[in-house]
């Protein structure tokens, strides 16, 4: 008896006069109830935050709110049209900067780096360091990207607080996201696809561009959509690079404010909490849409 595990060693009748087995089942019951509570708590937290913001915000949201510009002031008069425009510009800018580089890097790390491991000398070491670069970049807190963007783009390169500075800093922020999702998507493409193509006498680039990339496209798109969500919800980077002007930018060197920044300004500089909630509502709706797109893409990708 003494060599058995702890749980079984206890006397035949434990506390409350139950048998060992009944006691163990009771413990399990209690533990599982707590686990259910924890699972429920995650859902409750979501419902509390999202529900509250939606309930408070939805009454303010109207077409007029979406298409009229913010008029500023302590009461936070007006709508959010210019912030929507700025957000769209910024998303377009960051994605067009980061997507080609990120996808290129992902393709290199999966399709080309492996064969280079065999090489002697510098290149394999560079590949290892490049991976370390992606890993590090993914963990850097966003305010550091902001600080960097402020030092390099806003000050040193004299872009000022502008769409361009914010776009460049934002591109650095989403680059690791795109690289990682691209890598994952490429790894999921079966080896046989590549072998089939190469056996037909294509070069490696022909195989990658016309066989591997099309097969991995939904996965790569997931990364892009994920990055769009990241830019829409990011605040810290743009707080220190975008300037916060509530006018719509007309050139790359104009300042602006995104919807998320608008929420921050409304909450901290005005007493227009209702307007902040309404802007938050629009943000949450965008995120829900983005999540839905990602789920759709993922499902399509895994169905193959």
């Amino acid at each position, binding site marked *: 008896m003494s060599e058995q595990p702890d*749980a079984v060693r206890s006397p035949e009748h434990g506390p409350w006069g139950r048998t060992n087995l009944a006691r163990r089942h009771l413990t399990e019951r209690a533990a599982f109830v707590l686990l259910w509570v924890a699972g429920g708590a995650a859902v409750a937290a979501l419902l509390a935050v999202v529900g509250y*913001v939606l309930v408070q915000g939805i009454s303010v949201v109207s077409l007029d709110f979406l298409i009229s510009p913010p008029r500023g002031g302590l009461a936070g008069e007006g709508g959010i049209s210019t912030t929507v425009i700025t957000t769209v510009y910024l998303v377009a800018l960051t994605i067009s900067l980061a997507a080609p580089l990120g996808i290129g890097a992902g*393709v290199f790390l999966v399709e080309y780096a492996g064969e280079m491991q065999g090489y002697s000398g510098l290149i394999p070491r560079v590949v290892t360091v490049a991976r370390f670069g992606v890993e590090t970049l993914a963990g850097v807190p966003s305010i550091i990207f902001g*600080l*960097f963007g402020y030092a390099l783009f806003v000050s040193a390169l004299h872009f000022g607080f502008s769409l361009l500075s914010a776009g460049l800093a934002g591109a650095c922020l989403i680059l690791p996201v795109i690289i990682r999702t691209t890598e994952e998507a490429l790894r999921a493409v079966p080896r046989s696809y590549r072998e089939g193509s190469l056996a037909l006498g294509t070069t490696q680039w022909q195989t990658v561009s016309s066989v591997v990339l099309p097969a991995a496209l939904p996965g790569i798109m997931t990364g892009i959509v994920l990055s769009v969500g990241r830019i*829409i919800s990011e605040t810290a980077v743009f707080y220190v690079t975008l300037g916060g002007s509530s006018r719509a930018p007309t050139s790359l060197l104009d300042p602006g404010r995104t919807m998320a920044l608008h929420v921050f300004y409304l909450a901290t500089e005005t007493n227009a909490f209702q307007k902040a909630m309404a802007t938050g509502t629009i943000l949450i709706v965008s*995120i829900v849409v983005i999540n839905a797109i990602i789920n759709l893409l993922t499902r399509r990708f895994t169905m193959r």
Partner: protein
Amino acid sequence: MDMRRRYLVDRSVRYLLFFSALISLFIVFMIGLFTLREAWPAFREIGLLSMLTNSEWRPGRDQFGLLAMIAGSVWAAIGSMILGVPLALAGAIFLAEVAPVWMRGIVRSSVELLAGIPSVVYGLFGMVVLLPVIRKIPVAGNTGFGILAASIVLAVMILPTITNIAEDAIRAVPREYKEGSLALGATHWQTIMGVTLPAARSGIVAAVILGVGRAVGETMAMIMVIGNSIVLPRPLNSNPLTLFLSQARTLTGNIAVEISYATGLHEDALFATGVVLFVLIMIINSSANLLIRERRR
């Protein structure tokens, strides 16, 4: 001829891709270079040690101690861990082991959405809902703003990070381990506690560490609820727990609040704040990555 052209394209694309792979390394290098370069005068004139040990931050008088902000970041992280880790881990166990399929779907999409909600929305929720409630706690000097509000907001924000990674770790435990335990007559719960969790330990620890990293790195939500006053957090009365009602400022908040108008040594000191934050996060993240890699082996 065609063969030759194809070969040429293949070669040039290879180098093009190689260089795009180096871009992120280049950015890391540039971030390090620029933050260090801008921070250098601060380190030279004030000294790293005196910045880390002095709690007075008074830009007007050229006093740049970071201790109060470091304490603010650390206490907010500790508070969020106390509140968030048990919940997040229980959520992970629930998703991996206990939840029926329908409930798993609901919880998982909730967690997914929680991860996507912008941090300003959490901050806004904290300002409008949490602050008035916390303000009701009858302690002299309690303003509602402070470490408690920050901890609650952060606890919800880090929940998805910890739950997702910990769930993966728990799922990665080989089936045979559990079957062996169940075959010995252990209940499902005993198996979870005695076999599954110990086997997934390093992954779970990594999840918690990454959660800490996320908490320390959060900026905007912290500015909105922690009060931002530059004081070393200390209990408001004889009860040590009132420490959590004390206002504070985080390292991240210090940068964001002051960078747009800082000049000269003040600006340099803010970059030095960034360096301290960067090093802190690097230590946290690389220890998590080390654990994750060790598990894969």
